[in-house]
Structures are given as C-alpha cells and as structure tokens.
C-alpha cells in the first residue's frame, strides 16, 4: 500500500517536477565548466 502510494507519487508528481527543476536550475550543479577558473563557492559574510 505505502509502496504503491510512493510509486504513484514518484512517477506522477516527482518525475515531471524533477525533470523540469533540473532543466531550469540543477541544484546539484552537475555540469562541467571548462571555461571556469574555479568551482569553489565563496561564502559571503555580512
């Protein structure tokens, strides 16, 4: 039962949302950037 709910949620809700999310803004930043000098994310302090 629970697995069925998860299954439906995964493929009907999460999959379309996730695909769109990843196209618009990949939170995991998978792309290699050959032109970039660095992949460091600088932390700003206020």
């Amino acid at each position: 039962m629970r697995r069925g709910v998860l299954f439906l949620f995964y493929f009907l809700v999460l999959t379309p949302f996730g695909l769109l999310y990843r196209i618009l803004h990949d939170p995991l930043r998978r792309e290699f950037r050959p032109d970039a000098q660095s992949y460091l994310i600088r932390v700003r302090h206020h």
Partner: protein
Amino acid sequence: MPHLVLGISSYYHDSAAALVEDGKVIAAAQEERFSRRRHDPSFPAQAVKYCLQESGAKLDDVSTVAYYEDPRLKFRRVLATFATAVPYGFAAFSEALPAWLSWKRRADDTVRQELAGLGLGPVPALSCHRHHESHAASAFFPSPYESAAVLCVDGVGEWATTTLWHGRDRQLRQLAEIRFPHSLGLLYSAFTYFCGFKVDSGEYKLMGLAPYGKPRFADVIRKELIDIKPDGSFRLNMRYFAYLHGQVMTGRRFEELFRGPRRSPEGPLTEREFDLAASIQQVTEEVVGRLARTVRRLTGERRLCLAGGVALNCVANGKLAEQKVFDEIWVQPAAGDAGGALGAALSAAMERGASRAHLGTGRDGMAGALLGPEYDDEEIRGHLDAKELRYSRPEPDALVREVVTALEGGRVVGWFQGRMEFGPRALGNRSILGDPRDPDMQTTMNLKIKFRESFRPFAPSVLASDARDYFRLTQDSPYMLLVADIEHSKRVDSSPSAAHATGLDLLRVPRSVLPAVTHVDMSARVQTVAEEDNPTYHRLLSAFKERTGCPVLVNTSFNVRGEPIVNTPADAVTCFMRTDIDMLAIGGFLLRKEEQPAWHENGDWRTEIPLD
C-alpha cells in the same frame, strides 16, 4: 558553576559523544566501543552516560547539547537529490523516504527523546551545528595554534563536502566550499566499493594497497571522472556514479571505464585493484595539495588544521607535510564523523564564551586523544578473578621490564593501560605490541592475532625524541596520522632478484631494520610518543630502547578484525584468550598465555564477528 556542553553525533556512521567543560575536553568516546558493534550508528546512549559519569555531572548540569549536523538542511539536500535523479531512483527513494519523513528530518528531536529516555533528568536545550562546522571546530579549537587555516574534506553531511576556513582565537570563519554530489570522500569511497571493500571502513585498506600498484589509471580518472581546477576545486562526472539514484556507489559506465566488473568482496586481489588504489591515491593527494595551497593563499596562515574523513588519509597528510605547503599541520585524531560530536560541543562552547585554555602551553587540547574510560586495578582484579585467570602483580618498573623481555624474545604483548583512545587509532593504551625488528612479526601479527589479509602494514610507535633518526618526519605525529619515509640509513639493500618482485611478492623483500613496520614503498605510518602525552607508554618505549637500542615498537589496535577496539578489561581478556597474544599487561597485572586455563566459549566467535 562550570559550563558544560555535551556533543553528540549519530545516525550515520560511528556515533559518539563528547563532553566539554569551559572549553576543555573532558571526555569523548565512540558508541561502538561500548556496544561492540563496529561503526555503530545508533544513538550513543552508553557514550553519553560514560561522558557524564567521567565528569561527575548530571544531565541537568549540562547547559547545552550540541548536535553535529543540521538534519533539516540535510533533508532538503536528500529531497533535491531524489527530485533531480528521476526517473531512475525509485528503489532508493521508496527505501529511504519513509525514515526521512518519520524521524530523520528531525533527528535532533529524536536525540532529545533518546536523552529523556535515559532517565538522567531533564534534557537541556539542544543546538544543531552544520556538519562541516563541527569538523572545522574539531580541527581548529583543540589545535595548538592561535590562528590557522582549516581544511575539511569528507563524504557528505548536509550540502558541503569540502570547506575552507580561517580560524582565529575563538572564531572560525568559513571562506568557501564545494557541495554535494561533488565529493572527494565519495570519489574515494566509490573506488573502495569498486575494489570490493566496504564503503566507510575499507578506505584504509585501499590506501594500504596503493603502494603495490602503479597509478596507470590516474589520467583516466582526471579525464573522465573528475574535473580538477588549479585551485583544487572540482566537480565529478555523475554519469559514472550511482550514488544519486542507486544504493551502490558505481554503475555500468564505471565498469566499462575500468574494463571489468567490480571485484567481489572475497575475490582475489589483482594488478587492477593495486593500480586503481595507486591511481585514486595520487588524484586524492593532488586535490588535497591544491586545496591546501588555496586555503594558505586565502588566509595567509602558516599552519593548517585538518578534519573530515579524508583527513584520515595519512599518506596524503604525509605528502602535505613533506611538501611544506604549511610550516606545520595538525590533524584532529577523530577526523571522521565521531569527531563531529567533539566539534559540535566545542563550537557551542566557543559561541558561549569559553576559552581555549591549552593555548600557550605548547600542547594541543586533546590530551593525547586519551579521553575514554579508565579502569582501576581493583576492577581489573575482580574481572581476572571471576574468570579464574592466573596473573602476577609486579612493581610498575618490574612489569615494564618483563614486558620488554617478552617483546625482545619475539612475543606479542597486549597492552591495556589508562584511558581509552578517542578516534580510530590505538595510541598505546589499547594496543597490541611487538618487536619491529623481527622479520616475521608482520606475518605473525596479521595471521595469528588479527586474522586478516597480510598486505596491510603495521604502524610504529617511536619515542618523539628519536623519531627523526628513523623516519623522515618534518614534524611530530602524535596521532598516527602522518606517513613518513624510513630514513636512508635505516634501509637495507635488497637482493637483485627482489628488484623484480611485484604485487604481494614485494611483501617478502626485506627493506629496512624495522621490517614489521616498513611498507613496500619504504614508508611508515608513524606515531611519535612524547612523555607529556602518555607517560606510561613513553616509559615502556624508553625501557625497550634501553635494552635493545631500538626506540620503536609495532603498535596495532587491541582487537581482532571486524571487532571494535577493546574498551573494558573484559573485552581485553576475551581478545587475549581468543588469539595468540602471548602476554597481557593490564593495569598493574601481568598474564602469560601459557599459564592460563583453557578458554571456553559458547559458539564460534569467528563466525559471530562480521568481516570488516
């Protein structure tokens, strides 16, 4: 009224508790030592109880409980990962999500409930500290430096997998980070997995394997798996890894890249595994070296503090020390996630105005990492009597003399003294010792005591004052976290036929005057022992030197493979009786194996302890 902070790490790998009083570390221990389950991830109930007992405090006396990561932030990372790994990750998703929804996303509440369940009184306020903040705090605050650069590299906590910091006095300022899934720790673990070892514990074996191989895959790794920038920052090519959508580390593409499937855990080790180990080791050293140069440039500091699981890679640390990127480095002895408990506690203490009292003493604030339980002679005697074992109780000097005589005669000695070590290494209080000059000692200890593969080298303990006569060290290594080469004068020329030996055959070639601790590449994982850090162990090493001229002993952890390091006298006696350890020096007592009655146990312990 002293200000007490209790630190806790749990629910991932190697749970631990630590207690800090006015900024001073009072006690710290991993739960595995009490529960006897290796890398036990469950709530560290027994470690918490021990820490409170050590200080004589009640839970009520603790002003803050500090948790080593932020479960809500971690949950967001897990969700973002599931969402963007579609449509391949359903199995992992359905497996993991229920636990995340029901309790993991509020693990701090669970910690509160568990603490209440201990029945030790009202639970104090709890604060969460980010995973890398905990690592950084564990690296900097107990270090002997007033100010320093700090580098933390691990698998993953919330988002960060690599962080760069500037530590000054009681403050830590984060400068930069690299985020999940780009992780040097996970990259190393992927190779650990691919070579047939257990992730999160087999990394050590992979590192030990590296000297047998040639780094012929290093270029493939750099070209296909990881894009490394000049400053050491990097991204991984996620097409090759399976940890975003699967429950394993590597997938089909990884196998194609290295021409063949992953080695099965009990399968034979081949040239390919040796070369993979050598290759990933080289890449790791390159990244760590570049990151170290970057954090040096960003901070202008001349000293570096290290933590995070990758900081347990003592070969990479040794290279860093040797290259003199920094004048000196200090590595948190519990660099893995167990140390997060200590870091979180220190972080909370510093926020509340605690001081770093050890500064100015020239020593660090870890008390030699001897932060665990201690047992007095009455408790020990009670246990020995209950088991009807035969023992003597010589004067302290006589005990040391008898141990030295046994060691000199090629005997293996269990050495159980004082407080248990915090962190993965035994540092001379829960150790098995031998004579490093004995050419058969490595094989004897591996097969008869540890019951494990023979390719792994043992570590030497050396008197700090004599260390540089034997090892090419640029600084002290009190926590066995720096690898250094054997001094040229201590090496021996091997025969011409030996020059052609490859793989595990290299093991049988004599290499130095300390064959039991010299790895095939002439390196050793050194522990330097200073009198201030461990007077008892220092006395033993000094006596051994007086008798033999050699200030070095083989030091391996007091356990058999797959088992946590012993904690109590009962654990030590059991390990002593199960194995071929010849003598046990436990507190003031001395036990000889040949005098003991037969040892009976129900069941076969060898099948009960899981393989590591």
